[in-house]
């Protein structure tokens, strides 16, 4: 009855899809093409939306801009700082919550709380925690005899401050995914391994880790993609600046600056394309790696 497409069913289906397609078309599909085009606008009047000339100028300009490379470098540092550590921590915590049922519901709620709350609000709280004289962070470190650190104002520490906060914020999301993955592992494997006399560690490395492969892959890819796009955290933690001396300038922040404060739309679009290509390449590398080493 509805197995084969007909003209009638096609019209009906498109009527159902129309509202969604209208919005997605105008605000998703068209802008993707448009921003690709914009990156080649070399002479553009944005007040009237008139283009006088096309060319590679925007790309030439950003590739001669040391700030772009600084932004890319900082973004990579951020990704490499956040993702691996966050995965190890969240896997550890997920294992604990999975194996120790006592209060696990309570802790699961707590870990997840940062994820649902406003990044801006949280960053402002962390800005106060990082305060060099009155902040909690230095107070705690002081208890261990560490001298006060200028987390927010010293370029050496600003990225570390950002990374710590981002790990804290993202843990809950990863923990949930790991818990789902752990629940999907057949208990039979563990019983069998126990009978064969496998130790806890052996069971972990030979059953848990390989069977969590797909979950770990997913968590990594999602973590990498979202970390490449970090902006809100930077903007709020450093109160509307990309950290002291551009020390926390990230690629999206760079795009924001070009676009919103310098009105260089074409340049910003070109930087956007560069960001997209970076994410694409990194994701493809991860997928290739996944194919080779993760077995389902």
């Amino acid at each position: 009855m509805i197995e084969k497409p007909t003209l009638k069913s096609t019209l009906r289906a498109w009527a159902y899809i129309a509202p969604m397609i209208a919005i997605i078309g105008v605000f998703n599909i068209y802008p993707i093409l448009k921003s690709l085009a914009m990156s080649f606008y070399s002479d553009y009047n944005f007040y009237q939306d008139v283009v006088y000339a096309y060319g590679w100028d925007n790309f030439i300009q950003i590739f001669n801009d040391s700030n772009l490379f600084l932004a890319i470098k900082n973004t990579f540092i951020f990704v490499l700082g956040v993702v691996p550590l966050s995965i190890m921590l969240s896997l550890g915590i997920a294992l604990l919550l999975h194996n120790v049922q006592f209060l696990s519901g309570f802790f699961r709620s707590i870990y997840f709380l940062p994820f649902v709350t406003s990044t801006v609000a949280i960053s402002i709280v962390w800005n106060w925690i990082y305060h060099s004289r009155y902040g909690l962070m230095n107070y705690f470190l002081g208890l261990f005899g560490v001298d006060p650190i200028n987390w927010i104002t010293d370029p050496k520490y600003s990225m570390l401050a950002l990374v710590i906060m981002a790990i804290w914020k993202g843990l809950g999301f990863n923990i949930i995914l790991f818990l789902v993955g752990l629940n999907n592992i057949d208990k039979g494997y563990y019983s069998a391994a126990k009978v064969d006399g496998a130790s806890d560690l052996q069971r972990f490395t030979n059953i848990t880790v390989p069977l969590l492969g797909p979950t770990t892959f997913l968590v990594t890819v999602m973590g990498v993609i979202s970390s490449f796009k970090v902006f809100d955290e930077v903007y709020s933690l450093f109160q509307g600046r990309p950290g002291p001396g551009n020390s926390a300038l990230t690629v999206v922040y760079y795009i924001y600056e070009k676009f919103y404060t310098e009105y260089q739309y074409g340049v910003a679009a070109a930087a956007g394309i560069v960001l997209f290509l970076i994410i694409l390449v990194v994701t493809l590398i991860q997928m290739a790696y996944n194919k080779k080493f993760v077995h389902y």
Partner: protein
Amino acid sequence: MLIPFIWMVSTSLKTPGETVAMPPVWIPDILQIGNYAEAFEAAPFGRYFLNSVFVTVLSTAGELITTILAAFAFAKIEFYGKNILFTLLIATMMVPGEILIIPNFVTLSNMGLINTYAALIVPYLASVFSVFMLKQSFQSVPKELHYAAKVDGCSDFRFLWTIMVPLAKSSIVAITILKIIGSWNAFMWPLIVTNDRALRTLPVGLQAFTTEAGTQYELLMAAATIVVIPMVIVYLFLQKYIIMGISKSGLKG
């Protein structure tokens, strides 16, 4: 994990002297509830709050309607162009949303919509991601049910709202909550498309308040608490669905 939250609430109830006391004061001598009143006086948080509620409610309701209709067509109707269209939509999910900001800003300013509620709402009335998620759960509704309804003379449209939607309730609740959270906490887009103070949503208002309030951290923390509390309440009541939404989206997205 909880310390930043406890610290936020505790600081919001301190006197200025207590905020800078060393060692830190965890429980203020007298709870300075007046800080909240002062924060509300210093910036129109009531207005920001209403803006956030308005934008969140409308964009969530709109997205639900477009999503349910589209997901139904993809899950239950065979039509020409289905696979191509679906692949195209999935492909758009790979592009970082940040790239869309510039052309969308231009589009909206051509329409004269910058600095309006429409700019905050219209681009978010649909989401490929939720269509994708809901399509999965619509597909699990047996075909036979659809046939039976048709035989009984039930229109597709009625079948969708009276049978499919209730059956997919938990998925719908999950996307709704994720959307509410996302919309409530959205920052970059509202920051860019509104300059008007009267249009600010809570996160943008809070960010602006950090420059306005300067070093009055007790007021800042009160303001941050005002922004955070609604989502904490939503979360505590509906965490089952939120976690389901995350795990589903994670495994299938």
